[in-house]
């Protein structure tokens, strides 16, 4: 009977548990997490802030999840060390947890850049975990002036979460545009205009010169008074357990296509790893929930001896901000094809005869058909791509492919 151990209790862990249990009902599974909570969805913390979900509904899996999957949990305990030679995880309290197969799903943590005078800020917040959200929720009042450093996914989702509950939200970013990791220049501009209409104030191409008590001096010369500071400039993968055990780490933990690290019997998945992005042909950290699940599942399958290759991965993001939805995927290299129609902004990026990436803002209907073209690297000359340029449609596929999709089980 195999002993499976998972460090981490979020998306990749769930994928791993469900992957293991597809073929191994007998082995023991132990989940170790420093957070004391039942598995919850991290990206839902912004929806918790504005009441679109609550603690009960944001549970990522039902209450009986661990019981049904026969998982032992060690919650509120941090894993301090992996002894890869003797195959055990050492907990902070000195207890050793032996494993036959181990998954490291330690996620990432907010990056806090050095900033002049930051010590004068009473409680700088970050926005990643349930505890972060709970603490921020307690602190905000209708009179709060909130300063967010970072106009990326986390900073802006935080802004959405507190919009309407505070007096003012100011966002500062070093970049000359918002959401620079998922949008192109024109797309960023559109979304920025929308957010400004909702009351957000942006200082772009700007950064902190120094903090004073209750205000910040910016490099551009401006001064912004604030009551609450949220730092959301980026995240760093939690790779230390693996690197200290002698496993290879670049920007993230290095894994192969089976999600295996360079250490024997040690796998890794999710925000802590570097993945192969098929749209660029390069390794990068793809810190996104759907990919974390797929990697966790692949790891679980392999850990249980069920050798099932994973699906190809690439960046993908769906998000709404104050009523405006956008879906993006892949990389933005190659020939862009732009369609702007009223409130809709659509850009497709084609290279070497295949779709490499897309940006949809506004009308996002059926975007997954485009995602599928990227995933399968479908040669566009094998489909009636003309019929898909305006709207993703299955009619552009060959009759045979349509039959496969719609008239056969899969």
């Amino acid at each position, binding site marked *: 009977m195999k002993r499976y151990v998972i460090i981490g209790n979020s998306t990749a862990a769930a*994928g791993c548990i469900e992957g293991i249990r597809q073929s191994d009902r007998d082995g023991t599974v132990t989940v170790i997490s420093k957070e004391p909570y039942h598995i919850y*969805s991290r*990206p*839902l913390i912004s*929806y918790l802030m504005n009441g*679109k*979900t609550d603690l009960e*509904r*944001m*549970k*990522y*899996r*039902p209450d009986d999840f661990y019981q049904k999957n026969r998982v032992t949990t060690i919650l509120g305990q941090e894993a301090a060390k992996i002894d890869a030679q003797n195959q055990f995880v050492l907990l902070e309290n000195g207890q050793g947890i032996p494993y036959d197969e181990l998954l490291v799903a330690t996620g990432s943590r907010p990056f806090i850049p050095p900033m002049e005078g930051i010590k004068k800020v009473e409680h700088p917040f970050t926005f990643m975990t349930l505890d972060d959200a709970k603490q921020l929720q307690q602190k905000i009042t209708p009179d709060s002036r909130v300063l967010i450093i970072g106009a990326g996914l986390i900073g802006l989702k935080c802004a959405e979460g507190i919009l309407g509950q505070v007096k003012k939200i100011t966002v500062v970013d070093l970049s000359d545009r918002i959401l620079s990791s998922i949008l192109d220049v024109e797309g960023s501009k559109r979304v920025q205009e929308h957010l400004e209409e909702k009351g957000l104030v942006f200082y772009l191409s700007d950064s902190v010169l120094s903090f004073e008590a209750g205000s910040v001096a910016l490099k551009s010369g401006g001064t912004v008074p604030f009551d609450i500071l949220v730092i959301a400039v980026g995240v760093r993968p939690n790779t230390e357990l693996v690197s200290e055990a002698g496993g290879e780490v670049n920007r993230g933990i290095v894994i192969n296509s089976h999600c295996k690290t360079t250490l024997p019997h040690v796998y890794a998945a999710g925000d802590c790893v570097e993945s192969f992005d098929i749209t660029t042909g390069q390794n990068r950290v793809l810190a996104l*929930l*759907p990919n974390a*699940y*797929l990697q966790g*599942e692949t790891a679980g399958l392999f850990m249980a001896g069920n050798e099932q290759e994973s*699906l190809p991965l690439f960046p*993908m*993001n*769906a*998000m*709404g901000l104050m009523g405006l*939805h956008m*879906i993006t*995927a892949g990389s933005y290299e190659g020939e862009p094809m732009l369609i702007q129609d009223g409130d809709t902004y659509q850009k497709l990026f084609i290279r070497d005869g295949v779709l490499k990436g897309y940006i949809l803002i506004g009308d*996002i*209907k*059926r*975007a*997954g*058909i485009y*995602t*599928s073209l990227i*995933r399968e690297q479908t040669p566009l000359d094998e489909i009636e791509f003309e*019929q898909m340029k305006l709207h*993703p*449609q*299955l*009619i552009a596929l060959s*009759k045979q492919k*349509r*039959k496969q*999709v*719609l*008239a*056969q*089980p*899969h």
Partner: protein
Amino acid sequence: MKRVYVNEEWCLGCHLCEYYCAFANSGKESMIDALKGETIHPRIQVEDGGEIHFAVSCRHCTEPLCVKGCISGALTIEDGVIRLKEEKCVGCYTCVLSCPYGAIMPGEGKAVQKCELCLNNTHGTPLCVQGCPNRAIVFEER
């Protein structure tokens, strides 16, 4: 497992399946109350192009990318059917991004909507299939 399968060559492009779907999910007792003067938001949608017509609804895949990618745990597999727990859905549209068939769409409220084979309403068996005049969609094992 029984699924809704498409016989493309039999589809007339009449879009009746869309009306039956909208009715089935309206919670109303008669079609006239459900549909008269209303803009419908069906979970099955017909694609038309020249002579080609066919209906698209959830394929209830055995390896569903929508379920695997769902950020809230709102999408689940129950006895092979992909179900939506509406109260858990926050409308992030990651499933719209993930579904290779474009079969999940924004709903009328904050949640998305998808075909649940009429298990989510009082009909219990796909009303779109019952209403199809030409067996262009069928509910069967394949």
